[in-house]
């Protein structure tokens, strides 16, 4: 089969790869019909995530058709159109039993501090991902769902990560009616967080980025007030000013490990890999929240230490909440919101690229060329 393969930092190519096989009785093999590139893939692509091996296929956002099922699979059969959450999880361990699907203890031998994720390095279990024609899906009775007939394909694709994560980020903020919510990052996750903040009753939603075309999307798609941090000497002070020097009740970090805005943080984190991530946006979040407020972190950071302004969070009495998103827990409610017309996730898709051209797809998304927001990958056999 054809599959995207990692060749080292900033380098990927499409190769002929062995077909995945059933390795466990509850596995399924899925023929991928659409995949996407996520901001998280960039952390792998840039070589920041420890134990990212040459030869791995990335891709944790995908939908497809069930090609084959293992002997113990009960809920799926060949030919089913399925959407697959980015989490690999067993459904039965201590953590899964409590709804913490992204923190499963039975799927990742490489680390106890991380759950399982498709195509996301050995630190997340060493599973191949869905930027390929076929993919192995463990625990087929637990993760995947059949795509409802009424649902648009690309909406289903975005539900496997970006939308669920953005919505989860707003929930972690514990937003109360009338709260002022600041979202750092106007990528797919940030756009969906901003949109979701309104559903939870926010009184004001402010989005910060340095890419004007994304801020424009935040205004149109997410009805947000926006500021380009590159236009301000100090974005934290600006946020204080526009909140009557109180700060925001809730701040969501939807940027993560590759945050811009501070050269030293960029250099040590994304270039030299000496930090788990550049915490510039996280530090701004901590400093622009009001005392007693909440910082929700859905931007991803690696397992190496990062230079976070912990003392400010401490002295301000902030609540810090964060996690990888337990995707399937969000689905029933998000299905309702899509059906009611409150959310139209596929509105953020800007690029559709054939699998064979995935190297360009990565470069465009990574370098933020061509006003790219979300890239969908179309496999040759789709």
């Amino acid at each position, binding site marked *: 089969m054809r599959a995207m393969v990692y060749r080292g930092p900033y*380098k990927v190519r499409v190769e002929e790869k062995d077909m995945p096989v059933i390795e466990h009785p509850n596995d399924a093999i899925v023929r991928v019909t659409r995949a996407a590139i996520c901001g998280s893939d960039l952390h792998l692509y840039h070589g920041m995530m420890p134990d990212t*091996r040459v030869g791995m296929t990335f891709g944790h956002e995908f939908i497809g058709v069930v090609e084959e099922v293992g002997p113990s699979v009960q809920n799926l059969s060949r030919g089913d159109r399925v959407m697959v959450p980015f989490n690999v999880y067993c459904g039965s361990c201590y953590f899964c*039993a*409590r709804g913490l699907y992204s923190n499963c203890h039975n799927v990742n031998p490489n680390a106890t501090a991380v759950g399982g994720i498709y195509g996301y390095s050995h630190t997340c279990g060493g599973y191949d991902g869905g930027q390929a024609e076929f993919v192995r899906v463990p625990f087929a009775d637990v993760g995947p769902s059949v795509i409802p007939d009424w649902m648009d394909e690309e909406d289903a694709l975005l539900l496997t990560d970006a939308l669920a994560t953005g919505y989860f980020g707003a929930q972690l903020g514990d937003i109360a009616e009338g709260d002022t919510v600041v979202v750092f990052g106007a990528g797919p996750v940030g756009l969906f967080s901003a949109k979701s903040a309104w*559903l939870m009753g926010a009184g004001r939603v402010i989005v910060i980025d340095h890419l004007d075309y994304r801020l424009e999307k935040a205004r149109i798609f997410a009805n947000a007030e926006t500021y380009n941090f590159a236009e301000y000497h100090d974005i934290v002070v600006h946020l204080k000013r526009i909140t009557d020097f109180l700060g925001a009740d809730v701040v969501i970090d939807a940027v993560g490990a590759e945050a*811009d805005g501070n050269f030293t943080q960029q250099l040590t984190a994304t270039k030299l890999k000496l930090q788990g991530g550049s915490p510039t946006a996280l530090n701004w979040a901590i400093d622009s929240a009001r005392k007693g407020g909440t910082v929700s972190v859905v931007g991803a950071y690696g397992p190496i230490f990062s230079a976070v302004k912990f003392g400010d969070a401490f002295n301000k009495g902030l609540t810090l909440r964060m996690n990888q998103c337990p995707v399937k827990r969000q689905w029933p409610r998000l299905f309702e919101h899509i059906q009611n017309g409150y959310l139209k996730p596929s509105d953020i898709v800007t690029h559709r690229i054939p699998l064979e051209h995935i190297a360009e*797809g990565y470069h465009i998304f990574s370098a933020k060329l061509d006003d790219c927001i979300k890239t969908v990958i179309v496999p040759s056999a789709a």
Partner: protein
Amino acid sequence: MTYTADKPPHTETREELQRRIPGWGADLDPRDRPSVPRERHDTGATGAHWDFPERQEEKRPRERSVEHRTLTPVFGTVAPTHGLSGVIRRYAYRKYSEARAAHWLLLVAADRVDAVESHLRSFATTRPDNPITETGVLSEFTRHGISSRFGRKRADLNHIWIDPIVVAGPWLLAGGVLYSAVRAVTKRRS
């Protein structure tokens, strides 16, 4: 406000928000949100029909965190450890817990070694690594590389010049190793 007890007021009322934003307040009740409470006991709701999953066969020794009692019942099998990078990776797993910086820094170092090893190995195949096609850099010409970057207020322009060095690093390193190997051999001959 702020220096007194009241919260600074918003300019928009509830009704105005409802009118302007489709779905405003649909999830207003903080207790009625999908991830609330954080831990919710829901065995049976996940689709799992086992207490503990059957074990996937361990066809080759699988490295694992020392913070796990045993190998997990299910695991990924892509890209098994090999070569010098494999030696470093297995050592990092065997020797250091996830709590130790050495664990992660060794794994990051192994990633760099893996890239160099793989590039060198690719030269002995019919498909050597090609930095031009694999970086997708030609899209700079077809996807507005210049106008996407310049004349805009982008904050990343101060560090993107480092990227080519990150990309070319392993190549220069591999070239250097090859060069000194050849030098050493020719010197011994002369």
